[in-house]
């Protein structure tokens, strides 16, 4: 199990995850960011499950999540989620 925190321009992203065969098998995102609509956070977690824990694959998954959900996270960008996740993978 890995855990890490990353400070985005607006909000700290906290990631707790488990890997299986280099893929995310479970992930929990928390922190003091904003996301509209709020329920989309669960969609983002689901979108990340099964994704290979590498930068490129994660970025695709997160960008797809934004396109599909229409969610907005002021001053938190896809790259910030990916950075937080990669730190949790390393930690």
């Amino acid at each position, binding site marked *: 199990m890995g855990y890490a925190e990353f400070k985005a321009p607006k*909000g700290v992203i*906290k990631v707790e995850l488990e890997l299986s065969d280099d893929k995310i098998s479970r992930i929990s995102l*928390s922190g*003091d960011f*904003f996301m*509209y609509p709020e329920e989309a956070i669960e969609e983002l977690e689901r979108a990340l499950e099964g994704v290979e824990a590498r930068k490129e694959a994660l970025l695709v998954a997160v960008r797809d999540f934004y396109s599909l959900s229409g969610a907005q996270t002021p001053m938190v960008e896809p790259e910030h989620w990916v950075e937080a996740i990669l730190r949790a993978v390393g930690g």
Partner: protein
Amino acid sequence: MEWRLLPLRVDDAFMSMAIDEAVLKLNAEGKSPNTIRFWRWLPSAVSIGCFQSVEREVDLGVAKKYGVDVVRRITGGGAVFHDYGGELTYSVVCRQEDVPADIIESYKLICGGLVRGFEQLGLRAEFKPVNDVQVNGKKISGSAQTRRWGSVLQHGTVLISPDVRRMFELLKVSPEKISDKFIAFVFERVTTVERELGRKPSFEDVREAMSRGFEESLGVRLFEGQLTREELEFAAELKSKYSSDKWLRKR
């Protein structure tokens, strides 16, 4: 346009959050008018953002020791210590079409009411995106917003004279941070109405100033009104969700 202004309320954390959600939902259903409410938290409480993990953010042992309630909000953002003796809290509920569609612009409009309210008190304030109001470059108010069912809820703090030391005991900042040095650092970033004015105005005076501020910034006239029976009954129902362990430990 006329918006309803509720009387200054004193409620516990669970009821306060339940009233916010009840008015938001009923406003969306066309049963409640656009509404502004000011209140204080009794007992003092910690609210956490809807995406936060309570175990990671709050020292529940310390909260229990001081009889401080802990509640999860339906809005994002961070953990806040709401000191009964030192904070006035506001909430604004309105139809989504009555504020800009852009989230930061809508924060700016509603926080603009606070900016004008602080001016009424004799302080020069400015909106600091995304969700803060500053006086002399220091945060004096923080807000959080949610949009549901076609309506908007924005609530936030007006720091009058909160107990900062108690705040750091309750919130999980690393132990080395609860030093005089760190608290001095916080005092450079955060300020209060008492500190800026050199005196502590009454809660009613601050409420009055902020109400006028909202009228100017939103371009509305406020009329004094009460919560309806329907709102109170719905809030009583929602209160059990907010006081449940399941909701508190959702994340």
